[in-house]
């Protein structure tokens, strides 16, 4: 492989890293509160708000069921507003984040729901406020599950980021398509696939490791 190609490879890898890192980070920061709200406003939970909960659930489902490639194109005006441009790595972060937030929200919600109602009751009996219940019980108890959810989200983002080429986002997936497929360079394609596999493996093992370290059950 030529030096030129290697540079290209490295740049693509960095682009993937930026897209996945930034979108993953933003989706974590925004998705965890979303998951919390979905949970605590649910029926029988600490702050039940049935109408609000159902509406938010519908919105989340709508976002989740829109195919990523369509979402990316459909929100171009929003992307331009937020990123200042509708093409490039930075621009790709917007749809990636928007797709990942509801995904994280649902995964976080699932982990929070697994927290035994008995624990919530025990701290309610101690006189805990809803906010204290969230901070002292729900999040710490669900943390291993939340970390698992975030790992799943990152792995999915690595896959989604391959489609970012459609808006000029670059990244490894784009490299594979442009060189490996369109220019008939099977070795580049193979290389891209291998790197992605290794990348996913690393993310997954780090996530598993962290989740296990946090789990005292």
């Amino acid at each position, binding site marked *: 492989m030529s030096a030129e190609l290697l540079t290209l490879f490295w740049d693509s890898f960095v682009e993937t890293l930026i897209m996945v890192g930034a979108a993953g980070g933003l989706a974590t920061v925004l998705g965890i509160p979303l998951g919390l709200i979905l949970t605590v406003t649910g029926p029988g939970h600490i702050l039940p708000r049935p109408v609000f909960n159902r509406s938010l659930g519908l919105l989340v489902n709508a976002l989740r069921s829109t195919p990523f490639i369509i979402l990316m194109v459909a929100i171009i005006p929003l992307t331009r507003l937020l990123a200042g441009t509708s093409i490039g790595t930075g621009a790709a972060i917007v749809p990636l984040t928007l797709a990942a937030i509801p995904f994280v929200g649902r995964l976080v919600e699932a982990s929070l729901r697994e927290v*035994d109602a*008995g*624990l919530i*009751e*025990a*701290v*309610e*009996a*101690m*006189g*805990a*406020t809803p906010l*204290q219940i969230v901070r*002292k*019980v729900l999040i*710490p*108890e669900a*943390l291993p599950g939340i970390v698992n959810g975030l790992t799943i989200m990152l792995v999915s983002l690595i896959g989604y980021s391959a489609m970012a080429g459609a808006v000029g986002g670059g990244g490894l997936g784009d490299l594979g398509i442009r060189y490996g497929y369109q220019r008939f360079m099977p070795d580049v394609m193979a290389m891209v696939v291998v790197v992605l596999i290794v990348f996913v493996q690393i993310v997954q093992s780090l996530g598993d490791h962290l989740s296990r370290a*946090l789990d*005292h*059950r």
Partner: protein
Amino acid sequence: MIVIENLAKHYGGGGAVGNAVEALAGIDLRVEAGEIFGIIGRSGAGKSTLVRCINLLERPSAGSVRVAGRELTALGDAELRAARRDIGMIFQHFNLLSSRTVFDNVALPLELAGVDEAEIEARVAPLLDLVGLAEQRARYPAQLSGGQKQRVGIARALANRPRVLLCDEATSALDPETTRSILSLLRDINRRLGLTVIVVTHEMQVIKDLCDRVAVLDRGRVVEQGSVFEVFTDPRHETTRALIRDVVGQELPAGLLERLAQPHLSTGGRLLRLVFTGAAADAPLISVLTRRFGLDLNILHGQIDEIQGRPFGSLLVLMEGVAERRDEAMAWLVEQSIRVEAVHVG
């Protein structure tokens, strides 16, 4: 300490009275300060609902709950949270946070109350000593036995220095030996701290070993209450009898009783149960009956036991002899404050 008046709780139904569950109705209870008060009843009788109404984990549908002079049903959210710090609670399944160590579990109620770190250390350490878990302070609940977990639960419930401790089936997940050690811990705490304790259980042995007074719930109503000694030695309600059958006054199997008694009954003998409590429990009454009244007594079954440190016993006897002397003997027994019940067979 706890005064419950005309308490009722319905579940569900959504306005349609027909399918609402009436879990509790017309409950009146008074629990005095420093007392250990038991609540028994069949499954579904409403025991858990009743204790959960005491700290308002369950909102009563009607009636009032006063704890330490404070009317809980009238409090707003913030006041209720403050009032709950006066009421500790322990649970059948312990409900410890798996993400926290033993120490941090016990510290939790103090953190919630905004107690500072130095004070938390100063208060948690003696509690861990009290429940015998000082060495396990850095362990996680998953690394503890059931009995140890319940000790953490107890220490946690005591952290805010409550005046009342609610126990819902606190020993039901534990083996008999561990149960005994938890009960003696509870008794110890009750004595040392003067804590008022409410114990819900389906284990009559727990009531017998631990409680001062007991209330019997049946289908959401209190059908009998009194000192454990009275209720257990002289149960009035059918449900109470059924519940305590296994811990007091064990009966002979009906078939065996009939086979033993029938030959004597047909020749004029009488089958009696003598129930004696207190001082009468160790009087030599059989020999007195034989010598003084010239009766023949055949003991079919007997037992002696102790409730709250007071002995009581029962004897199932076949009494044969002259009818007049038998009547004199019965009068004498009653004079000795021995309860005499005729037993029917077949």
